[in-house]
Each structure stands twice: as C-alpha cells, then as structure tokens.
C-alpha cells in the first residue's frame, strides 16, 4: 500500500515538472518578439513629461508602434528602482504613453538622475528597457561635515589650529619637565 502511494506521488511530481517546463517554453516562444522603446522629454510650465513610445523591433529594424503594452517608468535610487507615473501606463494606438516626472525628486550633486523605462512580463514581447540620464532632479547638497576638520568631527579630523595649539602646549610644558629631570640627574653628578 505504501509503495503504491509512493509511486502515485512520484508520477504526480514528474507530471507537474513537465507541465511547468512546457509553460516556461511556451512563454519563452510567445515572448520572442522584440520591441524597442523610444523616449522623448518635454517641459511645460515647470512640469516635466516623459513620453515613451514602444515599437516593434523585428529583424533589427524599427517597425510599427505597439498598442496596448505596459511601459514601466523608474528612477534609479541608491538601492532600488523608484516607480514613477501611474501604476499601469499603457500605450495608445500610436504606441505612446506619457507620464509626469515628479518635481521633488533628489538627484546627485548636479541634479542628474537615471531614468529607466521597461517592458516587463508582456504577453508577446521580450523584456527590454531604455535608459536615459536627465538633469531633472533636485541637486543634493552633501553633508560632508564629518569629513571636514571640525570640533564635532572624528578624532582624526580635529581642527589643525586646535592640534597645533594643544600639541605646542604639551611639547613646551613636557619639554620643561624633561629639562627638570635632566637637572635632577645633574644634581647627582655634581
């Protein structure tokens, strides 16, 4: 009885594995169409817009615009991608979708941000992405007070003036103390 149960379990496992592989294969076959994303940027009344256009990219040549495909807009942050725009941004009949760029996004010290637009998990098209560096972020002022020589910095970054003053006092006072030690030694030699 135990053996029969075990056989059924083994066979079910094999069937599930085959079904999974077939699904993956069909998925891969169905997504083998290539697409390309074109990006355009527009500024109007302090508002910034990104228009992404998806094109068919068969045989390494740009084809017709793709309608009804979702484009995902991201901005690269330190550890992950920050989604911008609506939750779903689906292309129109011209293959276009426009999202507004947030006005309050911090960039690097010059305001540069990296924009990434992706096609992800589409039914007919393979994943692809387009990247563009833009100076649309708010420049970040780095707080480098810890690396400067200040009273509140780490010990290694003590202000030079303080180091000179303190060490000079120590050298002068201890220099005199060692001179006194020497004179005491001289007393024994008189």
């Amino acid at each position, binding site marked *: 009885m135990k053996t029969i149960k075990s056989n059924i379990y083994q066979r079910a496992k094999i069937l599930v594995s085959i079904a999974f592989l077939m699904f993956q294969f069909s998925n891969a076959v169905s997504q083998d169409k290539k697409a390309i994303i074109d990006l355009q940027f527009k500024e109007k009344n302090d508002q910034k817009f990104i228009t992404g256009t998806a094109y068919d990219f068969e045989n390494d040549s740009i084809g017709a615009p793709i309608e009804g495909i979702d484009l995902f807009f991201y901005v690269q942050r330190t550890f992950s991608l920050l989604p911008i725009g609506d939750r779903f941004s689906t292309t129109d009949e011209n293959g276009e979708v426009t999202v507004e760029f947030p006005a309050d996004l911090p960039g690097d010290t010059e305001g540069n941000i990296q924009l990434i637009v992706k096609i992800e998990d589409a039914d007919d098209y393979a994943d692809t992405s387009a990247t563009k560096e833009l100076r649309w972020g708010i420049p970040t002022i780095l707080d480098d007070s810890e690396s400067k020589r200040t009273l*509140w910095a780490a*010990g290694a970054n*003590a202000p030079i003036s303080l180091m000179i003053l*303190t060490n000079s006092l120590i050298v002068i006072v201890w220099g005199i*103390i060692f001179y*006194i030690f020497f*004179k*005491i*030694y001289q007393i024994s030699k*008189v």
Partner: protein
Amino acid sequence: MTDIITKIEKIDLPDKDRANIEDDLLRHIAGPSRKYKIWIGVLVFIIAVGAFAYVRQLKYGLIVTAMRDYTSWGIYISNFVFFVAVSLVGSLVSSILKLSHATWATPLNRISEIIAVSAIMSAAIIIIIDMGRPDRFFNVFLYGRLQSPIIWDVIVIGTYLVISFLLLFISLLPDIGLCRDRLVELPGWQKKMYRTLAFNWQDKPEQFEIVKKISGILGIMVIPVAFAIHTITSWLFATTWRPGWDSTNLGPYFVSGAFMVGASCIIIAMYFIQKYLRLQEYITDKHFDNMGKLLVLLSLVYLYFNINEYLGPLFRMVGVEGEHITELFAGKYAPMYWLVQVGGLILPITLLIFKPFRKPFPIMIVSFLVLVGAWLKRFLIVIPSLQHPYLPIQDVDESYMHYIPTWEEWAITLGSFAGALLIISVLIKLFPVLPIWEIKNEKKLIKAT
C-alpha cells in the same frame, strides 16, 4: 591680591641654631607611635571597606550605584572636582605666596605640596572608579578625540600630577640628604630609601643652585597648569548644555573656589601637625592669623563669583533653568544649598574677620566648615543640574528624577578620603614636614660645603 599678600608681615622663625632646628624637625620621623599606628589602622580599615564596595561595583557594574540616565555623574564626580580643587593648594602656597615674597609662608610650603600630591592622586583614582569599564581606560589615549575637554582634562591632570611630585621632591631633596646623614638609627629599608632618593646630595653650592633654579621654573610653571587643571575641569560642565552649567563664569568660579578650599585644608593640616608633632615654635599663631586673613580674602572672591553665578539665572527664571534655581533656593536641595552658602561661606568670612577666631582651634573649626561646605557645593554643582535636562526623556522612570547615593558610593567616597589622608600621613611620617633647609636659609644657617 598680590599687593595684599605682600603686605602681610614677615614672621620670625625660632631663634635657634642649625642643630636644634634639625632636631626639632626630624624628631617625628623616629619609630611610629601607638597613636600613629591606630590612625593608620583606622584609615586602612576605611579603605578596605571602600575596596570591598569597589569590588562589588566591578562585579555587578555601575548598577550598584544610584546613577541612572539622568544623574549619570554622582558623588564620584563631585568628589573628583573636590580633590582637583584641593590640589590647587600646592600652587597657592609654593608658588603664588613664594613669588609674592611672603616669606612667612615658608614653613607651610611642604604641607601644601604634600596635600597637593595626595589630592591629585586621589582625583586621578576617583575618575577611574567612576568608569563602568576601567579596563578600557587606555582607550582614552588610543582613541581619544583632541576636541573633547575630557581629553584635555586627562592630559592636564597627568601633567599636574608630575609637576606636583617634582615640586614636592625638589624642595625635599636637601632634607632627604639630611635624613640620610642624620637618621642613622632607622630601619634598613628607610635608610636605603633616603640614600636612593637623595640623588647623591652633598649640600654643595652647585647643587643648591640647581635646586633654586628648578624651584623657580616649577614655581612659575605650576601657576598656568594649576589654573588650566581646574578651568578645564569646569569646562567639562560648561561645554555641556545643562541648567547651572551653561555659564561663561564657570572657570574663574571653580578656580576661586579651589583656592578657598585649599587654604582651609592647609589650616586644618597646620593645626594637627602643630599639635601632634609639637611644632608650636615653627607653626605659630601668626601663621594661623595670616592664613585666616588669606582665607577671608579668597572666600570673598569666591562669594563674588557665587553672586555672579546665581544672580543672572535668578533674575531670568526661564524654563528649566528657573526650575533648577527654584529647586536650589526653595526646593528639595534648599537646606543643603543654604547650609553651604551660609555655613560654608558667609559665616566663615564673618567669623574670621575677628582676630579671636583666627586662633588655632577656632580657625581649624571654621576651616572645617569651609571644607565640608566645599564638598557639598560640588554635590550641588553636579547633581541638581543633571536632574533638569533641557530635553527630558518621555515617560521617564520615577527613579531617574532622584539621586540618593548607595552605600557602595559612600564607602568608595569615604575610602578615597581615607586614601588621601593615608598618603599625607605616610609622607609626613617619612619626610620632614617643614622645609628644614629653607628655614635654615631664612636664618642663614645653611651649611654649604
């Protein structure tokens, strides 16, 4: 201050010859008396109880103390500030009075130097006792930040400790030579100690010249270092933003208080040394009288800084600062505060203005009041301020709002007092307590070969 001090008249030393002076001042070094042994036994017992309490603190941590997140500095730090204050006495007598040509104070030089050495050693030990992890003490040197007043304090305490030792040793050197030559009936270890410490002293003029030169250098150098040690100690408080500490007055306030407590320590020591070592000819009523006048002067200066320290916040009475002042003037610390200000400052000044109170016994009692007041004053400087932070903890535990030292803290604190007295007692027993060669020099009895 210098003008007033220099006006104090010179005191005549006993009209004795060289041998008699030596006999008088070396007499107490002979074998310890029964009274001395009992005294040392009592001190050692108190130190042993303190050591036991410290072992408990090491074993269980600072939780055995009453210090918590609010009152993180308790009586250990009060005691540390007190000992640093007392240590300034060395610079007061051995330097300031000497440089002011107040020759009457010559017999007091050695006493002040011994008290200074003992106090600064106790201060250094107390600060280590206050550490939760004393095994990490050397991290202060390895990883310390030069920007921190704590590091400045460590540097200046170490420096002042060495200078205090040198001040004592240099003035002792000719007398150690005398002990080596004259005290031949002492135990072998003691004679060997004198031989070693005498540095081949032979009363040669060249040797006296070197001693004179070193004394001059040290006498000048000790003043800025002494001012630095207590000013920097005050900055430990002044650079921390707390009511009562946030003051530019704190440096001179601490230094003036230190000179006052130092003078009272000398007077108490003078009384017992005069009485038990039978040195009435050398430490006379005139010495007590002059020290009394000096104590009044120093107390008046300290009173002036006290008025400065409290009048501003009292006038403003703003927020937490106002709460702090209210607590001191009319709250739970009011009895101690008024006891210190009246009993330890105003009353001594008033009494010592009158000559009869500058006689040895009355002035010793008055000085004792000043000393107790000074210790309690350090308690009032440290603890109430910590209980009123500008940024209080939300829903703070009730126990954080109060500070009543535990028996371990009291035992360790009393142990530190006993330790300081033990150092003084041992040094007095081993070495001449008055500077024989300087007294002979005053009388032109010095024997230069």
